[in-house]
Each structure stands twice: as structure tokens, then as C-alpha cells.
């Protein structure tokens, strides 16, 4: 089973954000693998362990993202593809997905996995857009993947997956989905493995192919523009409620019902 995982490199979770226009100052901060994508990678590695095949890691961005691709290789991915683009932070979801889809289109892939969303932009659209652009079936917020090998009639029918999808409010659903397909993986569904020393050393010898957006024949057009990012200003003033407990409780319930209208 050939699985491709889209992985994004994002600013480290605890990095102090220095805003510069519509992005952040990249000097003096660390970068790391987008945490939701690490669950997708883990899922891919487990599927490979179960069904054989290859796990390819794909990442879009400047030179620094090769570091994150290496981390994925150290965990067990077989090879990596780096789409070099220094301006990728400016790309909108559709533009980024077009580039990724162009690269994926050149490979023979059974399954494309993505994380739910990125910790920086948080668009959460990549998986769905890839499915649309590659004309593949898809499902999102997947908690479990069961690949059913072959079919009961014994013919070489396309393989099928049984997927567990999360719905709101504690509900779940099973879905049948044929391969090839695109899935976005829910965070926290597995315990992400550690890179082993051997894995880190082996990663040095694994291939990372570099390709550019231009070479893939994708033009840089956007459907939307981030005008600016900013820290939302606080305009609220605290209203203190006083009185004996019963009174203050009644006051609060009234405020919550009629003023804030949250209950």
C-alpha cells in the first residue's frame, strides 16, 4: 500500500510571535512538525506495518522544511518530497493544494493522509481540496482505518476501507470508502512513536527529492489574501457582582440569560 502523507512545518508552539504584516518574523523562532500531521504520519506508518508498501512524505515550503521531512524519515517514512517555495506562507488553501496535488499526481498512491488542520493558519481545507483536485473520494476527522484486502468474490476488485469518522457531540459514524482516497486524520487517535537512533541515522540515507512550483507547472494565483494579522485587543471591563451567595448567584444567572445571552 503506497501512502503519501502531507506534512506541514509550522512555528514552534511556544515561539513568541512577532507579527510582521500578514505573517510573523521568522528569525529567532524554532519550527516543528505540525502536531496534527504527526498523527497522520503515525497512522501511515502503522498501515505500512500492517499492509506493506511505502510511506512518502510531502512538504511545501522554504529550505527549512527539509528538517521536518527528515524527522518523518527518522520515524520510518521511506522517502520525502520537498516542494521548494519561499513564499508559501502567502498561498491560500486552494493554491497550496494545487501545488501539492500536482506533486502527488506524479506518484502512484493508494492513500493520501493529512492532519486535520495546521497550528499556524488553521485553514483545515487541505485534505478536502486534494481530494477535489485529484478527483478522489475522501473523508475527514478519521479515527480509525480498516483496510479490507481484496473482495469476497476473489477478483481483483479495488480495495475498500471501513472508516470511523467523528461527528459532533460524542457521535461517530462508520463509512465505507474505496481506495485510492484522501483522508484527514483526527488528532490524538494514536500514540505517536519516537524516532529511534537507528531511524535517525537511516534517515540520512533516505531520498528527499526537491521540486519547485514552477517545475510542477502550477501558477501562483490566490483566491484570498491575508491582509494583516494582529493580536485582538481587549475591550471588556469586568463587572463585579456583589452580595450574599444566593443573591449574587441570582444576579449572575440573570446576566448570563439576558445580558450575555449564553444560557
Amino acid at each position: 500500500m503506497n501512502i503519501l502523507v502531507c506534512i506541514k512545518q509550522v512555528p514552534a508552539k511556544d515561539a513568541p510571535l512577532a507579527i510582521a504584516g500578514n505573517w510573523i518574523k521568522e528569525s529567532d523562532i524554532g519550527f516543528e512538525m505540525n502536531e496534527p500531521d504527526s498523527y497522520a504520519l503515525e497512522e501511515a506508518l502503522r498501515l505500512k506495518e500492517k499492509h506493506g508498501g511505502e510511506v512518502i512524505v510531502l512538504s511545501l515550503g522554504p529550505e527549512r522544511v527539509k528538517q521536518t521531512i527528515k524527522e518523518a524519515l527518522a520515524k520510518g517514512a521511506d522517502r520525502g518530497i520537498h516542494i521548494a517555495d519561499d513564499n508559501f506562507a502567502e498561498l491560500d488553501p486552494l493554491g497550496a493544494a494545487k501545488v501539492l496535488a500536482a506533486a502527488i499526481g506524479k506518484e502512484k498512491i493508494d492513500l493520501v493522509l493529512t492532519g486535520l488542520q495546521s497550528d499556524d493558519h488553521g485553514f483545515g481545507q487541505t485534505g478536502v481540496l486534494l481530494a477535489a483536485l485529484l478527483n478522489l473520494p475522501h473523508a475527514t476527522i478519521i479515527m480509525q482505518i480498516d483496510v479490507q484486502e481484496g473482495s469476497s468474490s476473489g477478483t481483483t476488485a479495488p480495495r475498500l476501507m471501513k472508516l470511523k469518522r467523528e461527528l459532533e457531540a460524542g457521535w461517530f459514524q462508520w463509512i465505507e470508502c474505496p481506495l485510492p482516497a484522501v483522508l484527514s486524520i483526527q488528532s490524538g487517535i494514536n500514540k505517536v512513536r519516537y524516532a529511534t537512533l537507528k531511524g535517525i541515522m537511516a534517515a540520512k540515507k533516505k531520498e528527499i527529492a526537491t521540486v519547485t512550483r514552477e517545475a510542477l507547472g502550477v501558477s501562483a494565483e490566490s483566491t484570498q489574501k491575508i491582509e494583516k494579522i494582529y493580536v485582538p485587543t481587549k475591550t471588556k471591563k469586568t463587572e463585579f457582582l456583589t452580595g450574599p451567595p444566593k443573591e449574587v448567584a441570582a444576579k449572575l444567572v440573570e446576566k448570563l440569560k439576558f445580558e450575555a445571552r449564553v444560557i
Partner: protein
Amino acid sequence: MTMQREQLEADVLIVGAGPAGLSCALHLANLIKQHNASGAKPELSAENIYVLEKGREIGAHQLSGAIMNPKALAELVPGFEKSAPLDTPVTDSAALLFTEKHSYRAPITPPPFNNTGNYVISLSKVVKWLGGLVEAAGVNLFKEFGGADLIYEGDGIAGVITEDKGLDKNGKPKANYTPGYELRAKVTVLAEGTRGSLTKQLVAKKHLDNINPQSYGIGIKELWDVQPGKIKPGYVAHTLGWPISTKMYGGGWIYGLSNNRISIGLVIALEYENSRFDPHAAFQTWKTHPFVRNILEGGKLVRYGAKSLPYGGWYAMPRNFMDGGLIAGDSGSFLDSQRLKGVHLAMKSGMLAAETIFEALKKGDYSANTLKLYKEKIDHSYIKEELWKVRNFHQSFRNGMLDGFFHSAIQQITGGAGLVDPMHAHAGHEAYKPIFGRPAPERFKGDGKLTFDRLTDVYHSGTRHDEDQPCHLKVQDLNICSTKCVEEFGNPCQYFCPAAVYEMVKEGSTLKLKINAANCVHCKTCDIADPYQIIDWVVPEGGGGPNYDGM
């Protein structure tokens, strides 16, 4: 738990990717390259050099002021001026005396505070850059791996065992449990930094102590972005006086970096009498001095961090060579406490270790007999030259600042000998005086703009640890905390920890120790300063700890 650990073998294992460890790796890789290029035999490989780094990134746990003397870097990386990310050369060196309301600049900056020719740097950045060079040289650099235990063999060491990963807080394996490796090497270099946990174990077990136990200080640092015009890049000031009493040893620093960024901090020797002294609070108080407050006006806190530093110098230097092992950097006491310079000495010690190992690799002999070359090289290098001159410096201050100035002045004109040579030191944790029932002081709160409480500061250290793992602060006897320590010293851990890890909480009628291990910034102060020496800092799961980007 007994289990089968995966075994790996290297030629050289370096524990710690700080200035000492990386300089050792890079220098050795360069020597090997030249050696192979010349066709000499046996052929060696830089790929058989393994470096372990417990941080998530190279440089993540590096904290220093820092002013760097470039002499070691110049040897290690010729042409460093063009390639190294040094922030700014020092343009002005000031020695300031603070009183509560005023500051006085010494008309002539005393030589130890004169930093002309040196650079103001972010140690984290420089180390990160060095790490890049080390990797490019083919060395295997493993991030998120720590040395948890030593492998002893014969009279020396034969490698380390890395930490177990994926254990829950009760020590039970989780789904992704990965036991630590048995990493063997012909030579293991301990370059763990200040109060290295493996080094501490090794020195105790093999009796490697020198005539003085190591003395330590704690350095607490904040990185700020200030209003333009407040400070010039390359401005370096060291302050003495307020708010540190003359009975204590310590002082502040203000370093101007480029782009209106400054590094400020306070160092205090961990050998004071008041068991409830709060170094973090002292630092925050120091910031309220008019001179500092003015610089910080309208500025913003960027990062916070803390680290201990080894003050003991030459006479506290443990034996640093043995069968299969060497000790370099802060772990080996290579810090000039008078000039507060440790980076170049750490680097030089790493390079000398590399040269020693290179000879051993050629000979195929890794015994103490061959590795003693390390000590000989140190003795003939500027490491000894510099440290010998200040060998009694820190000890002079055991009775306070005025006493210290007197002794060190005499040492200055006697090549370091002074009136008493060697001057002895006591372990800092023995200096505490009992509290005799004195009520506990009120805790510092901070105003949230200029000064901060510890929790707010710790948030800005970027420290994180997986919460579900065994506590890495091993207290040998918690009963002592609830009984003896409450009475005698009032639980100093609550005060000296700059990350609010330790708390005494009331449970019924007793006080019990609560450890917020996830806050830990790996400064090692608790391991050093606990009065009963029952706290053992051990390496947590790799990757955990602070994020000192830009520090």
C-alpha cells in the same frame, strides 16, 4: 526493570551538544577528514561520532548572558567573522555600582569587566549554527536523547544508557514505550553543562573531586525588546550593589544586542545564609532600579530563562580523564568566574578533548594512560593560563564582597596566589542558617509589566514536558521535606527554584512537597542548593525542557 536494550556502538560518544560538546565533535571530524585525506591509516570516520542532545533542537537549552571571547571559535572555524551568527562586537564596557536610587559608573572599567574585542552573542544561536556545521561534517547528532545512566567498565566508563521513552507518570509503559539504548563507545565525553547529572554520578563514584567541592551560582535572565534609542548595540554593563547585600556574591548584567533587543539578568552565588532567599525575586527587584527601569520603559519581555553556573574554577575541577572517558565544558569546571567567561574555555576544552581522542583513535588505545594527554594539553593551553590566575577568586568572597575585593586585589598582583593558596571552599548548601521559627516572607507578585511572578516568567521560557512521564526530580526522602526541613530551613526549594517547580502544600496538619516537574527549566539549582542534598535531577524524556531560541 530488566529488559533487553538495543545496543549500539560508536567510536566516540559525546553527551551534550553545547559549546564544549559541539566543538569536540567538529574539531574531531576535521582532524579525521585531514587524516583520511592524507591517506593515513587506520581510516577513521566522522560518522562514528555520536552526539546526544536532550533538547528538542540544538541550542534549545543553551542559556548564557552572553559575552564571548572569540579566540576558541577563531581556532575552530577560521573565517568565523563572516559565517558565525555573532550579534554585535562589544562597543562599551561599563562597571556600575547601584545604590537603591542611584548608579555610579566606574571612571575606569576594571580589567575583569573590560570586554573590548569580545562579542555580545545569543549562545543559543551560535550553538545552533555550530550544530549545523557538525552535522554537515557527517557526525551523527541525535536530538531529544539524553544520557540517563553511565555504563561502567574497569576503572572508567564505556558509554551511556539513554533515557526510556514512553513511560507514564507511574513508570508503566505506554503504547509507544521505547526503552533507552545501551550506547557503547571507545571514548565517552561528558559535556553535559553545569551540574551534569552523569558527571555528578561519576565524580562521586570514582572520587574524582578536587580539593574544593564545586561552587555554583544561579543566573536568571530575561530577553527584552526595548524602545529605540534606549540602548546601543554592543553596550555591556555589569552592576554590583543594590539589591544584593554585601554579604552575598552576585551582580547584574545589561547587554545591548542589535535591533533594540537587550539581555538582562542577575547572577547570585548559591552559598547564602538566608535559606528563604528568592533569587528570582531579587532579579525582579533589580529591574526596578531607575537605571534599569528606564531602559525597559515601553519594552516587552521576549524570553525568560535560568541556569546555574560552576564558579569553583581550577581547584574545583574534577579529574577529567579516565579509562574510556573525558569531561569537558561546564561539567569540568572550565569557567573563569572572575571574568564570567565560560564559552571559549568550554570550546577549547572540547577541542583539546578532540585532539586527545584523535591520538587515541590512531593508537587504538582508550585507557587513562592515553587519555591523560587531555590533562597535559589543558595544562599547556590558555585554559590553565586563564584559570590559574583566578584559582582563588571565588573562594575569596565567602565572607562577603568587601572581603572578596581585598583578597582578589592581592591575587591580581600575585598571579592568583593571594594571601592563601589554595583557598578552600565549602559546598554552598552548607551555608544556610536555620530559620529559628522566623515567619515565611511574602512571595513576590510582580506588576505584570516591568516585573513578573515566576509562573508568568516560566511561561516565557517556552518550557514544556510531556506531563504523563515519571517525575525527573527524584527526592530521596520526602519525609525530610515535611518534617526536618520545615523546621530547620523552611523548605528553601520553594524559594530558590526559578521555575516554581517546588511547593509545600498543606495536607491535613502537615506540609507536603508538591513537584510541578513540567515547569522545570533544567537549571539544576535544586540539585545544587537543597540543604540535605536529597534532590537528584535526572534527565526527563528527551525533547522536554525550555526553548531558549534567541537567548
